């Protein structure tokens, strides 16, 4: 798991619209719209910069935010949700 690389759709693959509490994300490839709550939009934003390992992703988020429950397990659980939704891929 520690060597797993995660990445998101290419730049033009998503239409993102912040809606107060939610962020609406339209995935062009599948035609599916997803409503995301934090921290999913922030994770997608980092993944949009390029493929990344779990630890590096966690470190990157910690740079920008004061993380609560900032554990690998919590991040992995959020990533699992995004993978299941088809918004994130992994090796």
């Amino acid at each position, binding site marked *: 798991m520690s060597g797993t690389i995660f990445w998101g*759709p290419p730049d033009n*693959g998503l239409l*993102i619209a*912040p809606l107060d509490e939610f*962020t609406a994300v339209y*995935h*062009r*490839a*599948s*035609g*599916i*719209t*997803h*409503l*995301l*709550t*934090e*921290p*999913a*939009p*922030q994770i*997608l*934003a*980092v993944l949009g910069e390029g493929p990344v390992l779990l630890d590096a992703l966690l470190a990157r*988020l910690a740079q*920008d*935010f*004061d*993380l*609560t*429950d*900032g*554990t690998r*397990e*919590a*991040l992995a*659980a*959020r990533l699992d*949700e*995004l993978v*299941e*939704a*088809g*918004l994130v*891929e992994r090796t």
Partner: protein
Amino acid sequence: MSDDTQPNQDPAESPDSDAQAGVPTRRRVLAMGAVTAGAVVSIRPALAQTAGSVLNCEIPVPDPGRAGSYIDANGGVVPARTKGAFPPSTRAFRGEEVKRAMASGSTLPGTDSDRSRAYVKYIRRLQRGQGGFTCFASLQMPRG
């Protein structure tokens, strides 16, 4: 006359960059865990409004752009006749068949368990622009 406009307190906080990157310029708290209902809710597209349209859509293995290529045990597309890899499926699988194989671990029609596992891995790795992706994405949506 421009009293209604918002005072621009911090020129670095451009709304555009904020929305695009999803990363605010000021530091704030982000909770990684304890999401009660999950952080992702998917909304079905019109395509999936009837179960039939999803379950009858088709997923070719591999997609037509790579017809004739073999599928290795990890679901990767490899050149034809690669040792240890499986020949392409002679017919596209229906969404219903793929869904059943993923949910129950049963094999795809006309395949043994190793071959079925390789094909399912291939299908899981489908990406935008590849034949069958939209069908596969539709299968993953919660039923309601």
